[in-house]
């Protein structure tokens, strides 16, 4: 087991390095750097000026070396311009160049400075991830139990009316991406002009103009049901359908297994057959799906946060990408990649623990 985890961690590390390098490479392509130079320096810089700006700010040289610098395994660049000002990757604005450390990459905790948010990357990342953390937590709490219950109920009697109804619901929701369900939910529940809200308002049942709030910006400070329900529902709805379908497929398969017949012919009641005999076996596959859903949530989160203007990780990623905020984007991708890899690891280990055949085989 230990050997397995260590090996997996090794593969993970290699994957993380390769992926961050790809991101580094793509974000540090010459056109991006030129754009950076013009936005940081001046828009009207000549090409020669851009080149020298890049030179001064350590953006030239081999991409591998710059990646190593960024990681913190190669010494950071130091340049002294003709005015005698010494700049360096590790030298702060008011610091004495002589006292600056040699290495300062992400390994040393130096994730860089965001050009859009005008804060350090770590600070912005931390803040946005906290916001997204709450969103994800709420989504998981809503989504997973509902999906599992729907999946199990539909799958335990394949072809029954319950199955038909629940399956149709799951297929419909998994065919509704976040940008569609979000739009429809807002139109139905959070528009003063259409849907439910004008009716409710005219009846005097709601105080404001709309039932729910169409943006979740206020949830950054204070989460309430009315500002958080729609973004959560938007993300959860798609996931519910997907997980429920997986659970149903797994459940129907388990219900046709010989050992379920054995249990039934032992005289076990249907309820007990489902709860004691089928459930654990049926949970193995959906567990993996749920864990792998986390990385996918990232997609949904980006869309939903943009749609509802909730300044979490996804919103930040979009803003950073849209504004050529290279260091922010790099930091965000490190987080995203590690997040995906860790969930995959947990999914693998959990799978092994749920499945005695693998654990002890």
């Amino acid at each position, binding site marked *: 087991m230990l050997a397995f985890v260590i090996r997996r961690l090794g593969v993970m590390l290699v994957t993380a390095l390769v992926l961050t390098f790809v991101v580094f490479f793509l974000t540090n392509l010459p056109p991006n750097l030129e754009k950076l130079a013009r936005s940081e320096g001046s828009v009207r810089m000549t090409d020669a000026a851009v080149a020298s700006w890049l030179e001064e700010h350590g953006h030239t040289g081999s991409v591998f070396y710059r990646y190593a610098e960024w990681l913190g395994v190669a010494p950071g660049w130091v340049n002294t311009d003709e005015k005698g000002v010494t700049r360096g990757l590790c030298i702060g604005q008011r610091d004495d160049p002589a006292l600056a450390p040699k290495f300062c990459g992400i390994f040393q905790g130096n994730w860089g400075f965001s050009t859009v948010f005008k804060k350090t990357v770590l600070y912005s990342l931390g803040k946005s991830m906290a916001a997204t953390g709450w969103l994800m937590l709420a989504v998981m709490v809503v989504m997973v139990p509902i999906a599992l219950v729907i999946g199990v109920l539909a799958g335990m009697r394949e072809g029954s009316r319950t199955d038909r109804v629940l399956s149709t619901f799951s297929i419909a929701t998994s065919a509704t*991406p976040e940008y569609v369900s979000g739009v429809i939910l807002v139109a139905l529940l959070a528009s003063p002009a259409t849907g439910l809200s004008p009716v409710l308002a005219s009846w005097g049942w709601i105080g404001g103009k709309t039932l729910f709030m169409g943006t979740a910006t206020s949830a950054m400070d204070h989460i309430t049901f009315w500002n958080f329900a729609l973004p959560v529902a938007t993300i959860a709805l798609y996931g519910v359908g997907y997980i429920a379908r997986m659970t149903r497929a797994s459940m129907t398969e388990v219900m046709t297994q010989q050992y379920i017949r054995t249990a039934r012919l032992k005289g076990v009641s249907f309820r007990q057959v489902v709860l004691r005999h089928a459930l654990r076996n049926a949970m193995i596959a959906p567990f993996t799906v749920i864990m792998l859903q986390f990385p996918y949530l990232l997609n949904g989160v980006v869309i939903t946060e943009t749609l509802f203007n909730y300044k979490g990780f996804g919103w930040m990623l979009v803003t950073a990408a849209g504004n050529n905020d290279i260091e922010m984007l790099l930091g965000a991708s490190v987080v995203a990649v590690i997040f995906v890899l860790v969930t995959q690891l947990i999914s693998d280990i959990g799978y092994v623990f749920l499945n005695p055949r693998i654990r002890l085989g």
Partner: protein
Amino acid sequence: MSFLTPESGWADMSEPLSWAAIFGLMAKQFWPVWVALVVTFVLSFRFKRRLGLYGKLFDSPVAIIGFAIVMFWVFTALFANIIMTFDPLAQLGSVKNPLPGAVVPDGAEGQYKWFLLGGDHLARDVFSRMVMGARQVLIIAPAATTFAFLVGITLGLPAGYIGGRLDTALSFLANLVLAFPVILLFYLLVTPEIRNTGIPVALAAILFLIPIAFFAILFQSRFHTSPNKRNLYVGITLVLGLWVYSGLAFNADPLGVWGMDPNLLNVFVSVVFVNAPTVFRIVRGIVMDIKSRDYVAAGQTRGETAWYIMLWEILPNARGPLIVDYCLRIGYTTILLGTLGFFGLGVTPESPDWGSTINAGRKLLSMVPHPAVVPALALMSLVLGLNLLADGLREESLKD
């Protein structure tokens, strides 16, 4: 239907339409689709016993509904020019966001009189944009999915069949791509700056070669015993393939028939790139299962080449799950394209595709929902149809 025509006086020319009239007029507008659907279904039902898996689809109500929805959009895309009421890019008047059923201001002679489903913030006809959007989606989604399948199959077969180090290496690559957050990948790949670096073209150059290699190996492995046939088939594959290849990957078709907008190429490559690893995994799994069958062993003891066994003994027997996944994946790709459009990536802003229309419409969503809701419902129904079709197919293919 005559009572629905404007001449009948039933619908007043100067008044906005009621919802019933809107639906009536839309149904009329879709007439080529109805004709095509009726023809398809009548023919399919008549010959369903002779049509294999496609015929069996008509035994399952779920599959029939799914198929009907999908074909509705396919025919809509096909006949978009007849169905749409306006040029999807034309700005009709100065009123922003006209409501569904509103009268088009100062309509010229012979022009359609209403915004059937309203207009957007630039007063473009939402109905026509939705119809034209179907064409956009249905050209690129199936094509990109097909490419992703060819790439996934070509790499998944040897990974599953030969295994060993090759499998380890390919699986590592696949996992690498899968571990990349999709949205980030798109932001990095589908930007105008990237296009200048030539990376998408390089990726396209590699990815688009794989289908040619696929078909060349397919014929080579089967017909190496009779060189004449082999030369003919492989030759045709290479000539045709490389011709299309020069056009699609490098936009350098000497005859100028094949070509792809660089923006579109970007999107196309990214979508293939994201989907292929999943297909790879599925194929690899199925191959590992099938390769222990006796008919594979029989091929081996005949001295068949590995590629023959993979392509002619294993692949045809993996078709069931692959077809089901293909339907599902077209749906995912549609969603993915919508996501791209939603973030304004890779498409021109005035493009009528559903994703970017939703994005454009969402800004005024809470006041005037129709510009966003119409394409949203269209996209949802198409994906729903594909999902239902896949579900029905899965059930039917499991039945015997």
